[in-house]
């Protein structure tokens, strides 16, 4: 079974600064995907960024980038130039990449990190 751990329950950052959210995972799978989702207060969850395990290059989406360390099973999210609208709960998630078995199609989430951006 896969596990995802986010060790920072809460974090805060000043507007325009950079913040990094941590995530570690455990799996015996070799083919998998990792995700960061954002859930703003009382709003729906949005996919921020996705990383395929077989790709060595770290994924980036505008101000959001990841540091994927496969050997260390670490997947951190860096938010640059933080904005007030980045205030949200951030979830790290894992999904098995190959069809079949009880885990396929299932997102396994970490406990979440509440990020507050201060003006």
């Amino acid at each position, binding site marked *: 079974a896969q596990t995802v751990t986010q060790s920072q329950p809460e974090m805060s950052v000043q507007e325009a600064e950079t913040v990094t959210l941590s995530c570690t995972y455990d799996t015996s799978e070799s083919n998998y995907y990792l995700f960061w989702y954002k859930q703003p207060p009382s709003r729906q969850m949005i996919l921020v960024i996705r990383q395929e395990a077989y790709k060595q290059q770290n994924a980036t989406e505008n101000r959001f980038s990841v540091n994927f360390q496969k050997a260390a099973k670490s997947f951190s999210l860096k938010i640059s130039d933080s904005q007030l609208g980045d205030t949200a709960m951030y*979830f790290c998630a894992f999904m098995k990449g190959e069809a079949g078995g009880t885990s396929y*199609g*299932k*997102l396994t989430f970490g406990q*979440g990190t509440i990020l507050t951006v201060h003006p």
Partner: protein
Amino acid sequence: EAGVTQSPTHLIKTRGQQATLRCSPISGHTSVYWYQQALGLGLQFLLWYDEGEERNRGNFPPRFSGRQFPNYSSELNVNALELEDSALYLCASSYRDRGPFEQYFGPGTRLTVT
């Protein structure tokens, strides 16, 4: 393009009753996923439906069931409600061609069991 929609927004039920939650996927999406977000338990996978068939199921008792209709919308039914079923239930959808690796979430249904 309209996103994933869920109804009702809020649902209040009494212990022992049944609850029915509904989800309409993004147009063109054929897969629907259900997740439970309960306080203290985090987000947990419930069910995955694709083309009307149940593809996978999380570690939940059989009183959690669902179905997917020919128009790809879906229902989640929770029978014999228990207090611990109180949670936000999220629905997500995805294109079949992209597999389950790009799930788009709806706003959720807040179920309260008293």
